[in-house]
């Protein structure tokens, strides 16, 4: 009995984790699409900064979320302000995408 109970509990946990993983993955993928549509022109394909005209977004650390949101919404120098163009959700998806590919991300 006990064994069975444990097994069931474990299964439930695993399913939940898998669901969260899938949600994260979807978020990152949506972020990648938004990135390609709006940001790649300057920040380079797949965040590679190969254009040399902008900031390397992979350098942002986990605790720089406020800076990211602020810069994206309000712009900075040659970087346009995206407030009104992007929804809050899209900005969060972009952040998920940027963090998933950050220099200090666990891979």
């Amino acid at each position: 009995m006990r064994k069975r109970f444990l097994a069931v509990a474990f299964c439930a946990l695993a399913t939940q984790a898998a669901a969260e993983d899938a949600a994260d993955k979807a978020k990152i993928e949506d972020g990648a699409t938004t990135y390609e549509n709006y940001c790649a022109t300057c920040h380079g394909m797949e965040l590679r900064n190969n254009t040399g005209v902008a900031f390397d977004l992979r350098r942002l650390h986990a605790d720089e979320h406020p800076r990211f949101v602020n810069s994206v919404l309000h712009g900075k120098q040659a970087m346009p302000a995206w407030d009104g163009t992007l929804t809050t959700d899209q900005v969060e998806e972009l952040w998920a995408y940027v963090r998933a590919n950050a220099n200090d991300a666990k891979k």
Partner: protein
Amino acid sequence: MRPLIAALLLGFALPATAMAQSVADLRNDAKTPGDVLTYGMGYNQQRFSPLKQINRKTVKHLVPAWSYSMASNYGEESQALVKDGVIYITSHDKTVAVDALTGKEIWKTTIEYPPETTKTVCCGIVNRGAALYEGRLYRTTLDTHVIALDMKTGKEVWNVKSSDTADGAAMTGAPIVANGVLVNGIAGAEFGVRGFLEGHDLETGKQLWRLYTVPGEGEKGSETWPNGGAKASGGSTWTTGSYDPDLDLVFWGIGNPAPWNPLDRKGDDLYTNSIIAFRPKTGEMVWHYQMSPNDPFDHDGVNALVQADLKIGGKVQKVVMQAGRNGFFYVLDRATGKLLAANNYVKVTWANGIDLKTGRPNWTIDMKSVIESASKISTWPSISGGTNWFPMSYSPLTGLAYVNTLDMGMEYQPLPIEQVQNLKTGQPHYGVKITNIYPESGNRGILKAIDPLSGKAKWQVPFKSANWAGTMATAGGLVFTGALTGEFMAFDSETGKMLWQFQTPSGIIGQPITWERNGKQYVTVTSGTGGVYVLKIPDANLAHVPPGGSLWTFKLMED
């Protein structure tokens, strides 16, 4: 011998008439290699030069004369122009005049546009060139200003605003001067722009006419869109047309419909993906020919439109031709728009040929399944096309068109119709899921010497990364072009053998030209990577190509 004598005579005549550049000068541009006054090196845009001091034998002695920094990391796609010993070159943020023999800057006029401008620039922050006429340089800006500068000083003579970023619009193309009118196009089908061409008064900049490339509700052509054309959009005009002064017709390539997803715009969607001919004085459309009706693949009809006199069935015909984005090489009677030939010049799977009688493509089952049931398919060519904006050249000596072709396909599926039904102008107009398919050969680009009538290549040279630069042919038996890895190269126009190359500091996405001064021939091109391939298509081969714009001029080494 003849062209040389003509060139010498003109060389003498020029100084006296230095500023009085006239209609005749524009008409003769292709035959007077002392200057390059037009986009395409002549109204016919053949990008062919009668010069032959630099030729198959001498090209090995080609060396840099000078280089000039464009002081920018954005891509350099612009074609240089040359007049009276001065080179004029544009970029997204400046216009520059440089001494053609020394490379020293004469003047520089910067352009400032609001940061928001770039929100509706899909494919690279670039400019492709200018037009010269009677002492003035004409160009467009990203934030859709059309401006005139004094060629001597760079001072602004006039400046008019055409559109709004909110309309999804941007301008990257070179204008042309035709029959006393400045003609320019617009970019932005990726953001739902309603495409147009417009004519401006050369003296004042006043807008003389606007020709919309997709109809308004109930207008002519609206029957080819659903709901009477209420939501017709796209049809941008972001490259530069060519002009036939004898027929007084301008030929211009019209871009893709918006959005890319075709489900909510069943019908032919005129005049997207078409070639149109119009009167430069009035903007009146005289004929049109549509290459890709109801296009789902961004097979933008804007590639270079080159005029030539071709022998067809024993008779010389005045044609205009295009290596189409959709993979077919089109040859049309340029007086009437009648289709004379259309053969694929790269791998094509969306159509089994073009019906010469009706001019329409014979759709494959794959293509039908996209339109009728939103199926997922693998198809060639990819959204980048069989070739793209970078212009081909044509040599009347070899009868061949020199085209940097692309060898890429894609997995493609339109997203559900609901996702594209309520798009607002200024938002991205895609609505498709695309994964590129790269060729097994590992070579994504092939420089081809194409017979216009059969589409077949006489020779071809493969490249790992697709070339994204224009080509130029010369009477010296050479074809020049550049690679994304920075090599500027010359090939034998008959065999494709590479005869010369020089490593520039960045990738080349520019348009080579050649000209002469004091009896010497020079070749000029920009280096400076960028453009949509570099920005949006992963390519490990380009990992070590730094950005940075520069302008280069080459000449034969002196003893």
